[in-house]
């Protein structure tokens, strides 16, 4: 299956998909030391997103999500890429600052609700520079 998304921050990434329809706050939700999702109320709680492609509709809650994602990028525990259902300013800002600071933006792609609903955890995905997502 191939999906065509809107590019928020361009880049290439490959990895296993980790998908939830529930929005996520990285603050209180993501441990940057490990890449584990720690929000006990979130369906992905206990799973590790480091190096995987994380798909959540948008960020919930705290404005510190960006700070935590930046720490994860520096620590090497960030998702390989993030897919959302709408452009998310928090993910965008963290990716831009990571680019300014370390030359390491996290690729960000936004899909329509319908396309997002086709994603399943465990699938293997490859994101290309043009925003195409190839799923196997």
């Amino acid at each position, binding site marked *: 299956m191939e999906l065509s998304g809107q590019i928020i921050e361009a880049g290439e990434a490959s990895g296993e998909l980790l998908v939830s329809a529930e929005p996520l706050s990285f603050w209180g939700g993501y441990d940057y030391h490990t890449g584990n999702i*720690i929000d006990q109320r979130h369906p992905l709680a206990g799973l590790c997103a480091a190096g995987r492609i994380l798909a959540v509709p948008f960020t919930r809650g705290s404005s*510190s*999500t960006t*700070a935590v994602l930046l720490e994860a990028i520096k620590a090497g525990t960030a998702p390989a890429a993030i897919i959302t259902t709408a452009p998310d*300013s928090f993910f965008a800002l963290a990716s831009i600052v990571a680019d300014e600071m370390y030359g390491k933006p996290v690729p960000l792609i936004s899909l329509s609700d319908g396309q997002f609903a086709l994603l399943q955890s465990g699938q293997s995905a490859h994101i290309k520079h043009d925003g195409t997502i190839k799923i196997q």
Partner: protein
Amino acid sequence: MKSTSLSLTPYEQALLDGEHGTGKQLAMSVIVRMARFYGAPRLLEISGAHIDSSVYFGPAGLEFAERLAALGAQVSVPTTLNVSALDEHNWQEWAVPPEWASEARRQMIAYEAMGCRPTWTCAPYQVELTPKFGQQIAWGESSAIVFANSVLGARTARYPDLMDICAAIVGRVPEASLHLTENRAGELILDLAEISAEIQAESSFYPVLGTLLGKLAGNKIPVVNNFVGTPTEDDLKALGAASASAGAVALFHIVGVTPEAPTLDAAIQGRQDVPTIRVTQAMIREAWQLLTKASGDELDMVILGSPHFSLAEFKALAPLVAGKKKHPSVKFLVTSSRAMAALAHKAGLLEPIKAFGAQITLDTCILVSPMLPPEITRLMTNSGKYAYYAPGLLETEITFGSLQDCVRSAEIGRVTRDESLWN
């Protein structure tokens, strides 16, 4: 991202070109890239900022702050600071690791060096530089953003950490999002007609309603209709904080209460086909239940003050604890700001609270400072925000109750609540 081209004034272009120094250039570069993200046609001048980036999380945030400060960046508008990760003068009383404290302290110094005011509070609007109706500002801290927009009618987007300081340095934000009137219309109506006036009159109704708002609205702008309560400023503070924890609410309207909602029609700016959800008692109960994650009635600590405890909240707490003593096995902690604690002290409110056995932590809170010793695992609070975040961030259990429930539980040393209202 979007194709709309961004036009900059000669001054803004000069900032971007580094003519005003490399610190301002780095900040402007971030703002311009975010303006492209928003598809903004131009930038907008702001006249105030509140910085959430002051909280220390780790080496990357510290590096960012120290780089900006070392490059000589200074804020160009009056700027308050959110909580730090440290009670600057009393952190040694808790379990904060000294190395960690020294890093957190460096982050505080970097933000002070950029000209920010050391307010160190998540409720700056109760301390100083309270924004005016219609004022364009750049605020971080989800609970402060939602208060500024909804209760004060000031205008800020939901700015993330790291962007807030960039906006304060260049005095500009993308002309987009909640800065523009047309983006402030309600998108979802929550009708409280079925909810009893008795519940709506209860102070602990507000964090519960906020939680429900967050769950139902997600990142949309909710409008609460048929609301019959008479909320205090602190009630609205609690509502907003909970809505920005359980969801991504940056602006809510309450018809007849908040300034942009004199009528339902005004709140939705006369739009048609705005969906309505009829809130049921069962939905309220479910939101109330969501705020408790506990397996029994054992209790290690009562924690109050997220957002930071105000003078009015100290005033409400003092008579409840006067002449009483907390149980020796339970801690009772209030988190607040220097400014509010100083006022409470002057008003003689801290004496009965301290005599009860309560402790007061300033500048920070238990969610951002690693201050709690590991043996504290069972908490109780009247704060929707503490209730929402503690299990994930601190791996503790937590029970949500009213202020009265919290005091009573601290006295007897076990969780006890009046649940009659919610059943």
